[in-house]
C-alpha cells in the first residue's frame, strides 16, 4: 500500500523568508502523481502544486516550487518570499496513475508565518 510521510508536524518562517516542507512517499508504481494541498484555518483545502512522476522537471507555481527526487521518493515544497497568507496546514498527497483517482495524504505540516 502507498504511504505518505510528512516528518515535520509544525514549521515556522519569517515573512519574506524561504521555507521547505518535507514529504516522502512509498510506492511500487511507476505512474503516479504528487500534490501539495494547503488548508488555511477554517477553509477548504486548495491545490498548491502538482507533479507528474514521469516529468523530470520540477513543478513551479509562482513562489511555490517542488524538489521531486523520484529515486529517493521525496517530494518537498519550497515556499519563497513567505507571506502571512501562506500560514496554513500543508498536506502532501499521492495519487496512483491509471483510472484510480484516490488521494493518499500525509498527516500535514502546520506552517506559521511570523511578521
Amino acid at each position: 500500500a502507498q504511504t505518505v510521510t510528512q516528518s515535520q508536524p509544525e514549521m515556522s518562517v519569517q515573512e519574506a523568508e524561504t521555507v521547505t516542507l518535507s514529504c516522502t512517499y512509498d510506492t511500487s508504481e511507476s505512474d503516479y502523481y504528487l500534490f501539495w494541498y494547503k488548508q488555511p484555518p477554517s477553509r477548504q483545502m486548495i491545490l498548491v502544486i502538482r507533479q507528474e512522476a514521469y516529468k523530470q522537471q520540477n513543478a513551479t507555481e509562482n513562489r511555490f516550487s517542488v524538489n521531486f527526487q523520484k529515486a529517493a521518493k521525496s517530494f518537498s515544497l519550497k515556499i519563497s518570499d513567505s507571506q502571512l497568507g501562506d500560514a496554513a496546514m500543508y498536506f502532501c498527497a499521492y495519487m496512483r496513475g491509471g483510472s484510480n483517482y484516490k488521494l493518499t495524504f500525509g498527516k500535514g505540516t502546520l506552517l506559521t508565518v511570523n511578521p
Partner: protein
Amino acid sequence: EPEVTQTPSHQVTQMGQEVILRCVPISNHLYFYWYRQILGQKVEFLVSFYNNEISEKSEIFDDQFSVERPDGSNFTLKIRSTKLEDSAMYFCASSVGSRVQYFGPGTRLTVT
C-alpha cells in the same frame, strides 16, 4: 470561482442514529469523493463515485455507509447507525477528471 459546498458545517448526533452529510460539487464535475479526518490523524479516502456508481471504496466504507447523487447536483454520504468512532471531519471533493480534486470546507460530525 465555483466552489464545493457542504452542509451542515457541524452535525451532532447520538450513537446509533442515521446521519446524512450533504455536498454540492462543482457543476461540470464528473467525479465525486468523500474523505474523512479523525482528529489528529490523516485525511483518509472513503469512496469515489462516477457515472452514478461507486468506482472505488476503502475498507472503512462498510455497509453502514452509502453514497447517492439523488438529483444531479447534490452528493450525499449516509451513515446508517453512527458509532463513536465515526466522529471526524468529513470532506467532499469533486473533479472533472483532470486529477485535480476540489475540496469542500468539511462537515464536523460529532457522535455522542
